């Protein structure tokens, strides 16, 4: 029986993963606010290079998709609590509104269940200052696919750390 990592250990390693896991995550510089059984919350401040077509100067839709997709993978990982290969099957984005670069965006994502090796997730992006929704998303992941586990690098370091 494997000892499962605690939520504190997971959030610490998720934060480490985002700050050093890849150049993309270092570039995005997301801040993980919380990781619980109810899901993941993160904060992101769009940079000028993340803008869509000018002169509107609102974030390009794909940058919001990128963050939500990242959080969805992590939400599934938290639900699984073990290194398991997963793959995104599909992703649905609804862009509710556009916002100028006026401040931070809040993201929340959660795994709503895993059934027959399909994990389902849902997420939301809002403006931190007003709570106004920017985008909603849903995604499905295949669990136990071929290949290395997305979360292996993170979780395998937890035992014995600190």
């Amino acid at each position, binding site marked *: 029986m494997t000892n499962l990592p605690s939520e504190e250990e997971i959030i610490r390693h998720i934060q480490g993963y985002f700050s050093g896991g890849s150049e*993309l995550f270092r570039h995005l510089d997301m801040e993980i606010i919380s990781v619980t059984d109810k899901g993941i919350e993160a904060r992101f401040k769009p940079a000028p*290079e993340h803008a*869509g077509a000018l002169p509107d100067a609102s974030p390009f*839709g794909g*940058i919001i998709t*990128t963050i939500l997709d990242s959080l969805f993978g992590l939400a599934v990982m938290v639900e699984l609590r073990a290194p398991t290969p997963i*793959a995104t099957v599909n992703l649905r984005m609804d*862009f509710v509104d556009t916002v100028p670069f006026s401040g931070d965006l809040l993201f929340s994502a959660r795994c709503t269940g895993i059934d027959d090796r399909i994990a389902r997730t849902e997420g939301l992006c809002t403006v931190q200052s007003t709570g106004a929704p920017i985008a909603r998303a849903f995604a499905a992941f295949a669990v136990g696919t071929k290949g290395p586990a997305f979360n292996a*690098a993170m979780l395998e370091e937890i035992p014995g750390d600190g």
Partner: protein
Amino acid sequence: MDNEIEALRAAHELITITPFAKWLDAQASDDGDELVIRVPFNELLIGNSRIRAIHGGIMASILELAAAATLAAYDFEASRRKPISMQINYLKSTKDVETKAKGIVRKIGRRIDTIEAIAWQANPEKPVAIGICDFRRTRLKDRPQ
């Protein structure tokens, strides 16, 4: 021929005014008779370093850009569009190589346009992801000044 040149010009212009497209280093090209968006590999695009796969959200961004460029090329008058929804299906693992994408106009409506986008890497017959993007038309008078 003039229309093809104008379509390519419209796609170039869209990339030029879209900072995120420039961050992706996206380029528009006329491959035969279709507009293709090319995104060269960059380490910043990797989502899973273990398998060197392009991030799923970046793939979605490339599809969205291809759809928007296709729409701009199809109807290069002044009206602009905002994406209102997007459905992406991931078909194959990606690799750390150039990604290409194109769009197919499925509907041009009075308010909503629907574009199908297809992304591939080595072989256009084996797409890595496909998407359906719905855009809402924004009239000039609705634009922020």
